[in-house]
């Protein structure tokens, strides 16, 4: 009886492992080629490699299969899930991409974790899973719906958007940035900006700017989220803030209120007034600081 129980126990432990299958793909890619990976659940992990080969390793869950289309300039990898996959684990994959490649990674509920890459273009999106991107990319486009989005990318052009996920962009991002959220909070610690446009509906904005390039522009918009903007002490820009019912606090300039009717505004020249910084808020409070 004891031995029968042992066998049953062993089988129950081994069953999930037996349902999995391993992945080990290798494909050459021409310089600047495109790599696409689509895995709706589980995990996508991407790392850079110095060679000219795309590799994909990891495990597929029960009933899942990998579709591969490969040419010299393009490698497409897609995990196909069975129709009823509610109880099966998502595929867990690690992709290695050569330097200078274009990467497109997509998931739905899976986590996407990208690091140590050096790409010409990065496109990554997930719906409810979290998205983390680090490394270098000349241009980047990142998107989630409810999952958190965190980027520590050295990039000169970034577009990041979410509906309700928290959006956090760390140092390294500079140049031309476009950030959008609906209710998710947005935080940015930027390097030198030539252009920033950040929009939220109810999500807060917490933005620190390292430097504003000559003639650069910053435009922040929110409906009811609060805005905290920290500018460098030596910034040269015309600062304009307008709210309908939100409070305004600023190190520079005087907040104006009309004699009749609602609204607050602030118009101040910072330094030489070379660039433009505008903040529009309906009911969210706005705070502008310099230095610190």
């Amino acid at each position: 009886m004891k031995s029968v129980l042992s066998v049953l126990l062993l089988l129950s432990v081994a069953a999930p492992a037996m349902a999995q299958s391993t992945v080990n793909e290798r494909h050459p890619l021409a310089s600047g080629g495109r790599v696409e990976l689509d895995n709706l659940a589980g995990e996508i992990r991407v790392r850079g490699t110095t060679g000219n080969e795309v590799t994909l390793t990891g495990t597929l869950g029960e009933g899942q299969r990998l579709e591969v289309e490969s040419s010299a300039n393009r490698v497409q990898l897609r995990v196909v899930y069975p129709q009823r996959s509610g109880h099966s684990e998502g595929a867990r994959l690690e992709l290695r991409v050569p330097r200078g490649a274009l990467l497109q990674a997509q998931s739905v509920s899976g986590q996407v974790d990208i690091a140590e890459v050096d790409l010409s273009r990065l496109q990554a999106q997930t719906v409810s899973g979290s998205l983390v991107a680090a490394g270098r990319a000349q241009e980047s486009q990142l998107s989630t719906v409810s999952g958190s989005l965190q980027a520590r990318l050295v990039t000169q052009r970034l577009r990041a958007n979410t509906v309700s996920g928290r959006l956090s962009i760390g140092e390294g991002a500079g140049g031309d940035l476009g950030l959008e959220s609906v209710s998710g909070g947005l935080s940015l610690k930027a390097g030198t900006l030539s252009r920033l446009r950040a929009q939220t509906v109810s999500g807060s904005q917490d933005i620190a700017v390292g430097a504003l390039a000559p003639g650069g522009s910053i435009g922040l918009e929110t409906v009811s989220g609060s805005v905290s903007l920290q500018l460098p002490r030596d910034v040269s820009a015309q600062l304009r803030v307008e709210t309908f019912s939100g409070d305004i606090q600023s190190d520079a300039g005087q907040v104006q209120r009309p004699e009749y009717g609602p609204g607050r505004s602030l118009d101040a020249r910072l330094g030489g007034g070379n660039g433009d910084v505008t903040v529009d808020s309906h009911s969210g409070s706005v705070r502008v600081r310099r230095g610190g």
Partner: protein
Amino acid sequence: MTTEHPSDHALAQRLQQLPAQRTPPAAVWEAIAAGIGTSQPADAPSSTVPTPLPVRQRPRWRTPVAWAMAASVAVLAVAMWPRPAQPPGPAPTASVLVRQADAMAGEYRQAIAALPAGQVPAEIRPALHELDTSAAAIRVALGRQPDATFLLDQLRRTYAKRLELTRMAAREATAATAT
């Protein structure tokens, strides 16, 4: 998800062609004064703008329960879609921007109604609700601040996201039934 559909492009073009002029200041203050008279003082806290509901705990993707609970995309879209703007208080005349918002809502409502019916994945449903709540909040804000062009842009962005997610939901539903 970020790929623009040809019909999106056509719709975006039509929306961009809508006039972007501002209401003259006198009319602005009349409308604001009318709104204030029945809504809130200027110093009222921002909580009077409806806050979108928090995101619910995420269920697993494509679980049987999720599928069982999922509603039809078309039914949900049409049922939850905000009706033409109802600004607080008796505005004497709708501002240009409010009329544009009405036109935009109508365009997107038609675009969504044209999508094939299907089930909305549980992963996306909270976001659709969030977007509908946000669109309603923006329209209330636009009713109070009818010269705020940035609010119209926020509304356009919210509707565009709503359309994009609804399309994605329809595509997922179609793929699920095809496999």
